[in-house]
């Protein structure tokens, strides 16, 4: 099947850069962008709905700090968008959980990075944050809100992920997203302390992929193109390599469009530029969709499946889109 997408399937939107946490891996903590005003935010929703974008995911900062979050979500849902968000859970009490359900959220992801409270709290640099995240997850399930658990795999948890998966299942999550660490923003500053070596990534995936395939009663998602190295494609992937700029785009708090949150290259502005023209005509997006094999990717049999791996990591470390993924363990 030849894949043509008239617009992104998913738009990740940083509706605010503000956050009550200062996590050591955060890609957006160093971004001083002002956020769009409520009326501008509604125009963003109009544009995305007009473009038939299927999923709108609030990421970046803590979405619950935005005062018009629920009104904006109700508006987006009324326009046919499936709205999801990632939250640290700290602001979700019983009333907020009920409001989340009433607003029509399709799913909510709560960040939990370890089943050990002390490890999670240290990683999130917020004492008590584990208990708050777990409480938020339980409250959301009590309200019947579909739940995902979102974890960033790095030095602090790469050996302990089975306990994390068990916790997510116990909390009633339908999916646990085991995100690979990205060295962007604060993550770039803390790369040495947090990122795994290529061999450690290999060891992690060799243990985690069989767990994913074993039907544990919870979906385990990775979204990492270097999984192709293990001959293990994620099911229903549709495109090879990174999904950024192919299935998804990112909108910064100030409305600038980038291929993903981890690639700080502006390709347009959601309110000033023609969205369709950006999606179809951006030279940067065109490049990401048609990457060239360079370095050790040249002649690699896996290139057609992984397309050089994660473009964001390559760009962060080497400053080019076509460089091999620094997580790649292939010699």
């Amino acid at each position, binding site marked *: 099947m030849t894949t*043509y997408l008239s617009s992104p399937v998913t738009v990740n939107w940083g509706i605010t850069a503000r956050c009550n946490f200062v996590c050591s891996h955060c890609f957006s903590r160093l971004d001083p962008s002002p956020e769009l005003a409520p009326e501008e935010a509604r125009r963003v929703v109009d544009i995305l709905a007009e473009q038939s974008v299927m*999923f709108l995911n609030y990421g970046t900062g803590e979405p619950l700090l935005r005062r018009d979050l629920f009104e904006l979500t109700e508006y987006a849902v009324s326009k046919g968008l499936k709205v999801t968000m990632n939250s640290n859970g700290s602001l979700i009490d019983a009333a907020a959980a009920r409001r989340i359900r009433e607003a029509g959220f399709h799913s909510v992801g709560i960040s939990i990075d370890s089943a050990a409270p002390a490890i999670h709290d240290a990683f999130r640099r917020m004492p008590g944050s584990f208990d708050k995240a777990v409480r938020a997850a339980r409250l959301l399930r009590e309200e019947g809100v579909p739940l995902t658990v979102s974890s960033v795999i790095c030095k602090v948890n790469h050996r302990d992920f089975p306990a994390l998966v068990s916790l997510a299942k116990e909390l009633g999550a339908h999916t646990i997203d085991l995100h690979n660490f990205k060295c962007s923003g604060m993550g770039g500053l803390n790369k040495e302390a947090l990122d795994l070596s290529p061999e450690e990534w290999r060891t992690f995936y060799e243990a985690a992929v069989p767990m994913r395939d074993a039907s544990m009663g919870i979906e385990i998602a990775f979204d990492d193109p270097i999984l192709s190295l293990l001959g293990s494609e994620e099911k229903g992937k549709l495109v090879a390599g990174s999904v950024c700029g192919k299935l998804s785009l990112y909108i910064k708090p100030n409305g600038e469009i980038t291929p993903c949150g981890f690639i700080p290259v502006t390709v347009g502005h959601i309110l000033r530029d023609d969205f369709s023209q950006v999606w179809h005509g951006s030279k940067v997006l065109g490049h990401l969709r048609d990457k060239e094999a360079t370095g050790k990717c040249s002649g690699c049999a896996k290139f057609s499946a992984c397309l050089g791996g994660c473009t964001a990591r390559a760009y962060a470390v080497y400053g080019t889109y076509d460089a091999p993924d620094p997580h790649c363990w292939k010699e």
Partner: protein
Amino acid sequence: MIVPKRNPEVVWRLEKGIHAMAWDKARREEDFEDLGVLTLMVKGGIHQLNLVGAEIWTRVNGINTVEKISGEVAALFGWEAEETEEAVLGFLEGIGEKGWVTLGEGSG
């Protein structure tokens, strides 16, 4: 009478412009089977259907019978009714195995 019903958890859209492009190709008797015309997302997986699959999918509403859907699809593409019904049923059984639709017995 078999009545297919979509899994409500499947999120889908017709790809603007590409649906029309595929029909242009079909009318000119050019290859269109390989064009992804309709995109579906279910359980984190993303998939596409071609023009024929899309025309079947958009007629699945929990009311239309397989007979009605295949009759309309046969008319659209100028195909033989009997062969089309067999193909449409096969397609629906295939996506039924994936959990995208359920096939139930309709009344009447």
